[in-house]
């Protein structure tokens, strides 16, 4: 029992320690979450990425428009998940719980859309 009880907790601490290795410690509060200023910086970046998306809509760079829009969308998606939803700092178990659903959804619906694309008369 003690093994099963202590293992996840120690794993959580390790995950926190690992995740802090690649971030600026000046931006982190003592409660292991980013400072308010860091959140504002992330929001500014997200706003700029949105401006870039709208600019791509009005000034499409030919065949690169859709791939670039999708790339910007994925960057924004991941930034909100990692920083605002704290997946960068929280236990990997939360990431696994979410990615399980997200991965299943992407797999299922890419398969469905592919079937309509390749098999529709």
């Amino acid at each position, binding site marked *: 029992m003690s093994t099963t009880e202590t293992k*996840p907790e120690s794993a959580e601490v390790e995950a926190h320690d690992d995740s802090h290795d690649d971030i600026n410690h000046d931006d982190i509060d003592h409660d292991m979450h980013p400072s308010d200023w860091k959140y504002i910086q992330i929001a500014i970046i997200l706003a700029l990425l949105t401006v870039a998306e709208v600019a791509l809509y009005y000034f499409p760079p030919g065949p690169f428009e859709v791939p670039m829009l999708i790339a910007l969308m994925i960057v924004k998606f991941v930034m909100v998940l990692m920083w*605002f939803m704290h997946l960068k700092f929280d236990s990997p178990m939360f990431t696994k719980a979410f990615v399980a659903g997200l991965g299943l959804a992407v797999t299922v619906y890419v398969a469905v859309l592919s079937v309509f694309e390749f098999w529709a008369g």
Partner: protein
Amino acid sequence: MADTATKGVTLSEAIVAEVGAGGHATNTGYSNEKLGMWVFLGSECLLFGGLISTYLLYQDRAIEGPLPKDLYDIPFTSVSSFVLLMSSLTMVLAVSAQMRGELPRARTWLIATALLGGIFISGQVYEFTAFVQEGMGFTTSLAASAFYTLTGFHGAHVTIGIIMLLSLVSASANGKIPKERAETVEIVGLYWHFVDVVWILIFTIVYLIT
């Protein structure tokens, strides 16, 4: 169990010690409520994945009436998207303030988040009204039905989020959410950020990639 027995500590004492130290007395060692919210959000991916896929399949299917993409007002929707994005910032600032024990500031940020969500919903109501006046009702075409179902479901999620935020403000004002219960605010925050993340997908896939 063996260790606690050898050290002469009962399981209930070990649980009390763990909770007192800021841990969670659960089988996983993590908060059940938070883990439950993440699993729920994972399942929501399937819901919105289905709605987005349906829209992608039917976006050009209309025997009569205009297609949704013929009516989009991109500058207006861009501002709405910006408002929802900024509501994620105010939400995370509310969680941050709550964790520091600055409860009045946390309530202010929660109210700001609810207001920004309200502005987004008002924009969606305006957009839907404008589209109906242009001749695109819910049953006008497959494309219209798919569009209204997708964006309507998202709007319903935002509305539920606003209700949750206002409930939090009310509970906090009544002293029911002290600093120690910051996780409650964080869990509502997870839901709110997910709603924002879904709109990031909808804005690009539905509105910008036509």
